[in-house]
């Protein structure tokens, strides 16, 4: 039996979704002429500003194109479900937002994305567009600490893109934008847990198996296996398990400030996320770390997967300024 979805045709799902997105957000978004998978901000890209192009596979909505708009990303290149976009739509995004000040490519660190974005960057160079790339590698569960560069980028993208988008919007130099983007990544730590699978629109079969009393700690946002299968625990235990790893790496000092993101992988409802957030607050209070701002909800999903992730973004003065910088995107507003 196929999984239930409200779709027409699995192979058309991404393009039909994009049509629906443009229909809903005409004031924020448009596609590049002739390149429907290249979505750009109506407001934002402008002379002298470093262009910010983000992107990745579909199925993570509101990532990535929900974060396209003034003050955040200038464009997003959209791939098939869980698949990097090919170089062409990425290149079209770069062209559309390039104004000579350089273009930043930012995306999660996945082999497929790296290959496609790198190809696009080479093609952009031929068009005299200077591209630099900052990969997000916030998923603590995906490689040991000394191999941070091998880690996946997951929900922490939210803070990393936000910082970079603010730097670009504040008309900082290409070097500065790149530096701040990299720093934002270094300051961002995410751990996830998955409870039940999603299914791809084309196959409509669960993308992994999991027992009714199990959870998978550290599972990736495409259902990639994580660190460990365990029996489902309580919200506090799960949150602690995730925070222990995050805090172990982030090693905050008393008096440090963080921003918090408690993110649903899809079908885990706000009630559960806020119960987790309660525990996050308790734990941070205990160690004297203050919360500058929190986001709780669907920010980087895996279709209808059940599960959640916690991200801490350690702030200094500069990153706080970037976080507080206003942005007005299709599916997200802040500042």
């Amino acid at each position: 039996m196929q999984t239930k979805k409200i779709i027409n045709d699995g192979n058309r799902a991404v393009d039909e979704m994009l049509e629906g997105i443009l229909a809903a957000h005409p004031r924020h978004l448009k596609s590049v002429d002739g390149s429907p998978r290249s979505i750009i901000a109506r407001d934002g890209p402008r002379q002298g500003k470093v262009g910010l192009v983000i992107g990745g596979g579909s199925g993570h909505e509101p990532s990535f194109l929900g974060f396209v708009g003034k003050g955040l990303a200038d464009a997003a290149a959209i791939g098939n479900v869980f698949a990097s976009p090919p170089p062409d739509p990425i290149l079209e995004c770069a062209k559309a937002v390039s104004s000579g000040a350089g273009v930043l490519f930012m995306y999660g660190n996945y082999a497929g994305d790296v290959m496609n974005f790198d190809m696009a960057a080479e093609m952009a160079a031929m068009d005299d567009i200077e591209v630099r790339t900052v990969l997000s590698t916030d998923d603590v569960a995906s490689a040991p600490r000394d191999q941070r560069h091998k880690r996946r980028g997951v929900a922490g993208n939210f803070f990393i893109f936000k910082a970079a988008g603010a730097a670009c919007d504040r008309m900082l130099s290409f070097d500065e934008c790149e530096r701040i983007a990299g720093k934002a990544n270094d300051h961002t730590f995410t751990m996830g847990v998955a409870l039940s699978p999603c299914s791809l629109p084309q196959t409509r079969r669960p993308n992994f198996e999991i027992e009714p009393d199990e959870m998978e700690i550290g599972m990736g946002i495409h259902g990639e296996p994580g660190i460990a299968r365990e029996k489902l625990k309580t919200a506090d235990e799960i949150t602690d398990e995730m925070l222990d790893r995050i805090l172990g790496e982030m090693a905050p000092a008393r008096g440090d400030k963080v921003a918090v993101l408690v993110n649903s992988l899809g079908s885990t409802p706000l009630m559960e996320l806020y119960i987790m957030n309660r525990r996050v607050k308790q734990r941070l209070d205990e160690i004297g770390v203050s919360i500058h701002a929190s986001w709780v909800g669907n920010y980087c999903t895996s279709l209808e997967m059940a599960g959640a992730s916690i991200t801490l973004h350690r702030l200094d003065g500069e990153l706080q300024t970037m976080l507080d910088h206003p942005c007005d995107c299709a599916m997200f507003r802040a500042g």
Partner: protein
Amino acid sequence: MTIDTARLVAMFAAIANAMSADRDRLCALDGVIGDADHGIAMELGFSAARDAVAALDTAAADPTALLNTAAKSFLNAVGASSGPLYATALMRGAAAVKGKTTLDDAETVALFQAMAKGIQDRGKAEPGEKTMIDAWAPAAQAAGEALASGKGLAASLEAAAQAAKAGAEATKAMIATKGRASRLGERSLGHMDPGAASAVTVIEAMRVALTS
């Protein structure tokens, strides 16, 4: 045996067919150690390639043009990891047969070997890292050795298909260090790499289409 563009068009149709038939198995394999979409990517990519080359005027297009068309359409339909890998394979294949209008046995094997080399150059994977290279590299080598030992195209591709199969089998005993599965460490043991599995299907479909 001489391969002309019509035969290459038929080859893409055969691979696309084989990919559709194999799609769900490949997704299931990818579900175990990756993100469960490999069959979709391969079906999409080769369907797009099939359609693009079928739309060409085969009288006017040479093998290089045809393979480049296939590469571009595969890439644009897919993205993902498979897109750049197979697109590069096809573009390198295209470059390897530049200037020819038909391909003899040696040229066809050269095309095949260029494809494997393209995948390796693009993905930078070494044999033993549990990727499609573990099927493609031994297949390319076996085809080359067979041809060098005086065998014809059929026997050379037969050797390639056998080697691909053995190579894919061997990925079960490997720990992934490239691609999505590389974060699993030891948990990737015991499972066949989906890209290696699909390579077997691609190569077998090529063999049949080019030699029957």
